[in-house]
């Protein structure tokens, strides 16, 4: 009798069967498997389950508590929505990858020990990369390869950290990690790579825009939020994270203003939004951690909705740059409307989900009296509305007529977007159920006159500045270099230039040395060679002189010895 069923197992088994099914049945299976997975997740009871003895260690594959449940719920929900969005896709590799990727992310948040976490962590990388590669372009292949290499590095850091942790503490339990040990920093570095914390973030803005239309939805939801979860579990209250987080919120905004590709703008805003969560983890108070959990929950929904909207545009028009788009509201009105629900949700407009979660984190900063953090987070909110709610929406759906005449997105895409949009709206007006599943009881009301007034002023006046500066914010046919420059283009060129310089210097030095050596050899030859000075017959006087020198030196050394 099975007393505990791991939801990841359901998804992995479902993924294994999927390619064997005929088309009609496969579509039903694509909905049935995630719905079953979600049902299993909703049935989870708090406790520790699925213990496995392995090499003398006890692995806990299922630690179910308030914190892991928040993430498990939303992972389950987004998997259902994402699979509906991908129903029209006939490439089974993508579906299998998506299901196993979600299974791995769930496995990671339910992992009760570091070894189990490591296994699912690595599985996440090797399953998710297919969602990038299956776009089938050269750019996506190269981008996926870079994604793989960066995450492989993260995996090695995590493994090294886990080994050091085990050797120093004798335990593999995954709880708050003791600061200032080697394991602390190794594991933190691995987590920060997955959380896309600058300067370790470039894999995200490089790879996500190159993923398949449907794959990007899963990517946007799972990897970074798993990282937020593990940071909450192991690094709550580490002040460094608070500052890194607040920098992230601004970094994402600045690069989103520069970006031209619609999904790159969204990718940079994952960094910005995850920044709020990382900042809250760094603050570490109960309110802040509740805020991070709530924001992860709402963020997954609205960000997936935005990626679905942008994906629908790319799917229907074949274009992904703002400079190629415009005026689509007339032809894809439902996509536009649903996209806007995501856009106002991420911006924190009252009535939508971001408002009830982001403001918890800002409130946590205020309660702690952290004025600078408070102001920076609030301003980043203006930047979010600027790049998603205004720039992205305006130049894609409104603005000029680009001449594109797409039809509305397929029904399955609209249904998936509709589900996400309904959740964004319902959570926005009725945050109670969300607040009820947070890790700790929460005494917070987003819907005060003060909060509503503040958010509305912030966003509407951001809009005013946007329209006054409209000439400066449009997309440009350029790319903005980021940290990946170090391993991609200029950095690589610079490294190669240094290598060439070194090898040229080396060659020149050897050449000079050889020239010197030859000249020296010539001189020796001149003196000692067959016709050299020393080879000539010496006159007797010279011999007498040298004998005198020899005797004199003998005399000197002889005296010294006595």
């Amino acid at each position, binding site marked *: 009798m099975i007393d505990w069923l791991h939801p990841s197992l359901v998804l992995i088994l479902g993924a294994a069967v999927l390619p064997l099914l005929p088309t009609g049945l496969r579509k039903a299976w694509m909905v049935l498997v995630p719905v079953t997975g979600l049902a299993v997740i909703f049935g989870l009871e708090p406790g520790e389950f699925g213990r496995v003895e392995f090499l003398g260690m006890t692995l806990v594959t299922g630690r179910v508590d308030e914190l892991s449940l928040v993430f498990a719920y939303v992972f389950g929900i987004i998997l259902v929505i994402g699979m509906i969005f991908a129903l*029209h*896709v*006939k*490439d089974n590799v*993508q579906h299998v990858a998506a299901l196993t990727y979600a299974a791995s992310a769930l496995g990671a948040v339910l992992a009760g020990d570091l070894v189990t976490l490591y296994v699912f962590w690595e599985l996440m990388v090797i399953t998710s990369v297919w969602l990038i590669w*299956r776009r*089938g*372009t*050269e*750019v996506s292949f*190269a981008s996926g390869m870079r994604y793989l290499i960066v995450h492989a590095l993260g995996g090695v850091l995590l493994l090294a950290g886990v080994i050091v942790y085990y050797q120093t503490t004798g335990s593999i339990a995954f709880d708050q990690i003791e600061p200032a040990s080697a394991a602390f920093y190794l594991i933190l570095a691995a987590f920060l790579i997955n959380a896309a914390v600058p300067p370790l973030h470039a894999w995200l803005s490089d790879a996500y825009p190159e993923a*398949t*239309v449907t794959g990007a939805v899963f990517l946007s939801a799972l990897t970074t939020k798993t990282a937020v979860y593990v940071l909450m579990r192991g690094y709550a209250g580490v002040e460094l994270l608070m500052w890194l987080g607040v920098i992230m919120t601004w970094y994402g*905004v*600045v690069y989103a*203003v*520069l970006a031209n590709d619609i999904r790159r703008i969204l990718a940079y805003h994952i960094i910005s939004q995850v920044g709020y969560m990382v900042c809250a983890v760094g603050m570490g108070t109960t309110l802040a951690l509740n805020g991070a959990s709530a924001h992860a929950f709402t963020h997954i929904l609205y960000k997936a909705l935005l990626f679905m909207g942008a994906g629908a545009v*790319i*799917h*229907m028009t*074949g274009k*992904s740059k703002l400079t190629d788009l415009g005026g689509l*509201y*007339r*032809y894809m*009105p*439902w996509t*536009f409307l649903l996209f806007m629900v995501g856009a106002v949700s991420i911006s924190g407009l009252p009535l939508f989900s971001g408002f009830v979660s982001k403001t918890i984190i800002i409130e946590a900063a205020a*309660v702690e009296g952290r004025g600078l953090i*408070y102001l920076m987070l*609030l*301003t980043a909110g*203006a930047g979010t509305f*600027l790049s998603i709610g205004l720039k992205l929406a305006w130049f894609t759906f409104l603005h000029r007529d680009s001449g594109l005449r*797409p039809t509305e997105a397929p029904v399955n895409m609209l249904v998936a977007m509709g589900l996400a949009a309904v959740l964004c709206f319902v959570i926005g007006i009725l945050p109670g159920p969300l607040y009820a599943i947070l890790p700790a009881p929460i005494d917070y009301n987003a819907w*005060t*006159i*003060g909060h509503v*007034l*503040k958010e*509305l*002023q*912030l966003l*509407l*006046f*951001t*809009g*005013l*500045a*946007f329209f006054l*500066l409209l000439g*400066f*914010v449009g997309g*440009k*046919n*350029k*790319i*903005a*270099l980021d940290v990946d420059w170090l391993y991609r283009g*200029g950095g690589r060129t610079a490294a190669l230039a240094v290598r060439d310089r070194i090898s040229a210097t080396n060659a020149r030095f050897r050449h000079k040395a050889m020239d010197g050596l030859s000249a020296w050899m010539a001189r020796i030859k001149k003196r000692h060679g067959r016709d050299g000075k020393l080879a000539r017959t010496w006159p007797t006087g010279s011999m007498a002189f040298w004998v005198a020198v020899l005797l004199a030196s003998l005399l000197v050394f002889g005296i010294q010895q006595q």
Partner: protein
Amino acid sequence: MNLGDLLEKLVRRGRLLSLITLALMACLVLADIIIPPDYVRFPWDGIGGFAALLGFAGCAFFIAVAKGLGVLLVYKPEDYYGEEHEHDPPSADRREHD
């Protein structure tokens, strides 16, 4: 009337909508000045319209910083990395439809 037509009508009345929004914005600032704040935790908490100022200035600031950074440092031609982005054929992605 379908949604597209409705949106079309709204867009045609863009000027009117802008004026209504501006009036609403003025009312919000006015309300913020009149209504006393919930808390006074920071020096700016009592200032009416502070969030409006922050939104406007923040937006201008981000545009200025981003464009400055772009023009001076990070903007490069699209083929900088030697990669050409091919467009997907509309609604007929090879991977998705064969």
